[in-house]
């Protein structure tokens, strides 16, 4: 029982971090129709900045600066590269592939700088643990759950109550109509990219915190597991991304936790379990759990 609870809590923490990343995918997709393949390297960029800066600025200062810089980088990538490609559905596909090119360049550079090192981010939790009844939980996991919940709540409020959120939803609904109503698509888009970049930098903190050994060049790839999370929920649905992330996080934690019982599936199946779950869901619902069915208008 304790083992199960432990695994569930671990899964929730993992899911909370995935949710930060997956929400970034969804925000970008809603605003621009692009799936951002460079998200993993944006995350790594944020983490790397924190790792480099935390000695001088302290953790909080480094985090703030890294979040802002990553947001600015994401916004600039969109504004100065992707937006040259136009706004319609076809160019969104092209821009998706452009993000792969951006990812190659960014990731190569970061991997070169990080090399084989394990960087610590200097987060305040360290390897401290808290006793919760029968459970022993790492503080970093609790922090991941709490911070994600607060941030995600704030993002949802942003969607719901601000004029930027309204513009974003209008643009996702119908680009042309939104533009005619005076929504400045370029700005809304760039804003969405900034938000996604900030979320990615924040997620880097928890992906590199205890029990993980630290930030390494492959940390960005772990964030790839948020792809299934975003797809699972339906790319255009923030609530779906949240649900998908929790499902993926729980699946991964449970598969890893009960690895000895799942010996048939081979060692290390936990790493690929999210993809197996995603394939199963896509077989049944090709646009994800919460995805719009999408009628074609001719």
């Amino acid at each position, binding site marked *: 029982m304790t083992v199960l609870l432990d695994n569930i809590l671990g899964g929730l923490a993992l899911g909370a971090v995935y949710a930060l990343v997956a929400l970034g995918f969804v925000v970008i997709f809603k605003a621009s129709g692009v799936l951002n393949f460079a998200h993993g390297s944006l995350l790594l960029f944020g983490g790397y900045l924190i790792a480099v800066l935390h000695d001088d600025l302290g953790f909080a200062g480094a985090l703030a600066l890294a979040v802002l810089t990553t947001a600015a980088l994401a916004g600039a990538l969109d504004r100065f590269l992707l937006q040259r490609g136009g706004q319609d559905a076809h160019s969104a596909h092209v821009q998706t592939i452009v993000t792969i090119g951006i990812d190659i360049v960014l990731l190569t550079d970061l991997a070169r700088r990080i090399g084989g090192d394990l960087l610590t981010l200097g987060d305040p939790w360290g390897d401290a643990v808290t006793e919760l009844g029968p459970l022993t939980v790492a503080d970093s996991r609790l922090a991941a759950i709490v911070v994600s919940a607060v941030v995600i709540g704030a993002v949802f409020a942003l969607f719901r109550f601000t004029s930027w959120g309204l513009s974003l939803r209008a643009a996702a609904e119908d680009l042309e109509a939104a533009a005619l109503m005076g929504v400045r698509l370029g700005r809304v888009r760039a804003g969405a990219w900034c938000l996604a970049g900030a979320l990615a930098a924040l997620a880097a903190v928890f992906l590199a915190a205890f029990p993980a050994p630290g930030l390494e060049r492959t940390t960005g790839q772990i964030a*790839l597991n948020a792809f299934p999370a975003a797809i699972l929920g339906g790319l255009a649905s923030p609530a779906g991304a949240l649900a998908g992330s929790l499902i993926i996080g729980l699946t991964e934690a449970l598969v890893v936790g009960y690895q000895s019982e799942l010996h048939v599936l081979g*060692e290390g199946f936990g790493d690929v379990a999210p993809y197996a779950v995603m394939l199963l869901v896509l077989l049944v619902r090709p646009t994800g759990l919460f995805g719009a069915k*999408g*009628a074609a208008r001719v």
Partner: protein
Amino acid sequence: MSDRLLHTLTRRRGRLLLLAAVLCLPPFYLDAFWLRIGLFSMAAAIGAVGLALLSGTAGQLSLGHAFFLAVGAYGYSWFAGDPGPGLPPALAVLLAVLLAGAAGGLFSPVAARVKGIYLGIATLALVFLGHHVLLTADSVTGGFNGRSVPPLSLGGFTFAESDPELTVIGVPFGAEERLWYLGLALFAFTWFTARGLLRSRPGRALAALRDSETAAAVMGVDVARHRSAAFVVSSMYAGLAGVLLALAFRRVVPDYFSLVLSVDYLAMIVIGGLGSVAGATAGAVFVTALPLLMTRYADQLPLVAAPGSTEGAVGPTEAARYLYGAAIVLVLLYAPDGLHGLARRAGDRVRRLRSRPPADPTDRPSSPQPTAAARPKEHTP
């Protein structure tokens, strides 16, 4: 008019023959390093043509190409090798290609229904799950260390260092020289079948599907069937490329067939120009040869450190990746029809200049032809 058509056709055929003859020469003049570059490029070109059919012509984004390459490579070494049934290698090649096609077919319930970006991520799953299987199914795949690839032999002639010993006009024919001709034959096969396919009825149907699924369906194209057929054919080309790669490497390991490889193939067709066989070939040569050449000439290039020098320096592999990452971005944003389109436009311009009287070079046509083909607006709510 038919005279003129005939003339163009013979001229084109003559050019092709000339090209084929030139491509037969390298084994007599170049050393193994260059032959290996050529070999890898040809294998990559075969795979890239397959992906170009799927992503360029049928408009289905696939990041799962590495998986099908792996199926071809491992399929061949299992069918022809030990452990495995140890079949005659030629038969094993055929079976490996069919196996890759079958793998594509198994995926078709997803491929036929899932669209666009969703399909891209779904195929991502293939790469990760496939990599996992390659690592865990030790008895078939050899696990982390992979397995060695038995050489191909056709009617007593082996594509390896010896057996029989062979020397042509004073040039000893080792594995690279022999495989060069094998690769050339397989590539020619790919070139003609793919071009034929593109111009045939199914090829037109696929292009129609890409431009507008609804319109294609109204015109009588069976959407689901064509989408899954495109997937099967594309994975068969990937399987063939995998076999050739396996023969060139002589050993297959799981880590080679990772997401990076899939992205490489995507880069090839993007840089070359989506949806054209010639473009995919050019892109394949570019992406394959660039890192190898940069590694070889690292000490003579500015800003590039020799391989294995101090950590943090820009090594040749990294420099190559910077270059082709940037190439993807630049090509897509500034020349969306890729190398193929650039070459065509350059050719057009030369022809225009030639056909004009050379007297007034200032009076150039102000607007060149519209670059990207105009595309009907898609409605996706």
